[in-house]
């Protein structure tokens, strides 16, 4: 993939390269993508993408939604991480459009598996996930649920999840701040791409901060269901939230369940604690001010985000 990306970067610098890339994305890849969905009987407006900044509640949102539809279908709860991954088996990049591998790689890594039919309770054909920038061309008619969290806790979570547990990682960082340094540009681009899409009436985007979802899952799950055009079933909502606790997920992990089976080389639990405000254990006041100013220079006010638990 890195070689492919390097070739693309070079190709884009050649005068017509950028235009060709743009045209390919806008037309030939888009045509493939539409056909790909059509072949699988997925209507574009019935596809929801949980598009998140990593470590910002992707799997928590999936767990809430799968438990909610399972409650509506009168199935036994809780739905644990393994069953959740069977119900929602696809990753947008791997199974619908590996755009970052193009033009030299295959358009998809593997064909998508059919998701569980219970998601029809949400009027959807597919719920998939992605950690990519907002995709103007491909996601034009999808419902996009964007989750993000304050960048300081993001760095702590990513450090705990990835860097601390994987000593063989090539760009391994020694602290959350190093992670933030590494990921700063990516975080800003992600944040900006979704705020821009939100302020544009052409795309159906709902942004929710991970911290809000964690603190008040009843309200935010209810809001997501209403946003999807459905009416909320109160008892099913209660059951779904009660079944989606971190405690339940940890118990399921202890029994061999995996929250993110695609994560390579991960040791231990997928979850650290899910707490908001852990950054205080890793950043001094001076470091906080430095990052606050650095983000502000990019138009992102981290003080306006939820920083405390």
């Amino acid at each position, binding site marked *: 993939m890195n070689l492919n990306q390097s070739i693309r970067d070079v190709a884009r610098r050649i005068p017509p390269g950028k235009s060709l890339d743009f045209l390919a994305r806008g037309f030939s890849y888009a045509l493939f993508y539409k056909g790909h969905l059509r072949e699988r009987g997925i209507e574009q407006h019935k596809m929801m993408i949980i598009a998140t900044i990593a470590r910002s509640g992707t799997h928590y949102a999936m767990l809430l939604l799968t438990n909610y539809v399972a409650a509506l279908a009168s199935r036994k709860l809780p739905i644990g991480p393994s069953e959740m991954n069977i119900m929602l088996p696809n990753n947008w990049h791997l199974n619908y459009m590996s755009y970052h591998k193009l033009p030299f790689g295959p358009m998809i890594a593997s064909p998508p598996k059919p998701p569980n039919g219970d998601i029809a309770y949400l009027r959807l054909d597919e719920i998939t996930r992605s950690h990519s920038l907002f995709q103007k061309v491909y996601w034009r008619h999808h419902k996009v649920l964007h989750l993000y969290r304050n960048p300081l806790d993001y760095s702590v979570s990513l450090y705990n999840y990835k860097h601390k547990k994987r000593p063989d990682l090539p760009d391994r960082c020694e602290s959350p701040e190093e992670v933030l340094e590494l990921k700063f540009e990516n975080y800003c681009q992600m944040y900006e791409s979704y705020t821009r899409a939100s*302020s*544009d009436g052409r795309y*159906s985007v709902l942004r929710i901060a991970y911290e809000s979802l964690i603190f008040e899952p009843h309200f935010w799950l209810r809001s997501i269901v209403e946003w999807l055009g459905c009416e909320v079933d109160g008892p099913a909502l209660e059951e779904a939230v009660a079944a989606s606790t971190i405690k339940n997920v940890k118990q399921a992990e202890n029994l061999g369940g995996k929250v993110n089976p695609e994560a390579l080389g991960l040791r231990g639990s997928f979850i650290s604690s899910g707490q908001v405000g852990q950054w205080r254990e890793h950043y001094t006041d001076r470091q906080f001010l430095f990052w606050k100013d650095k983000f502000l220079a990019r138009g992102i006010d981290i003080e306006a985000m939820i920083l405390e638990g």
Partner: protein
Amino acid sequence: MSIFQRARVAIIRPLVDNDLVARILFSLRLCVSNLQKKDIVILATTTKTGTHYVRFLLAYYAALWSEKYDNGPVVEVDHAIVDSFFPNSWHSGYTFVLSRKQPDYRIGALGIKDLPRSHMSLRSFSWRGVRVLHTYRDRKDQAMVSWFMKFNCDRRFRSAYSGPQDLYDNTRDETLAQYSSFADIAKGGTNSLRISFENLFHDPSNTLALILYWLGLEPDRELCERAVSLAKQTQSILVGGGEKWHRFPNEHVDYAELQEFIESNLETGAIGIGRNILDT
């Protein structure tokens, strides 16, 4: 209204029913007002489902934001705040039926330049590419609140229906069409957010935060709480009303009757009040 204005209303209003004409007029209005589609959000609601509650929350939030971050004037209870922040209706202000008024500059805190309102089904062609905020509630509750807050208390309209059941029977199809048009996710090309009155009533602060997230902003939670506290001072919005004639004296309105209805439903938001209405 001058003769010229009356003539303009009489000529243009019927044309707006046509979606293509409406779209052309709307685009023209945006153009002459130097606005882009992303600058406005249409507050498209079923009447008596929280339109004014949402307007008050957003207006107070914007004013409080300006007070906190932009040296804006100190914000106090103001029953007319929505009229200066959001003075336009889409039907008139954005289709040349009437002139478009300039909203309060502090609306900029919401990342938009206007929030015109509308009480009609989703106009998927006219409004394509524009963000739409929609409020709705249980349709029987809606009929009941509408009866008490619009018809029963106003001597001009009292005889329009024999009671809430009659009102429900006569408006059910239109209300259902409005509801269905916004719930239908197949209607692409419109970024819409649905807000139920029940959610709004039970958790106004989070509902305000939800709208701000959807607008692409970071909600200031302290300001959300203050906005809710200020909005709650205008009682008529808490049951789903809040029109101008609820807030300011109007010679046609029986205020004793209106106030009795509002006060007896403040605790519940009139949620569930329509349970005795029948589907005939």
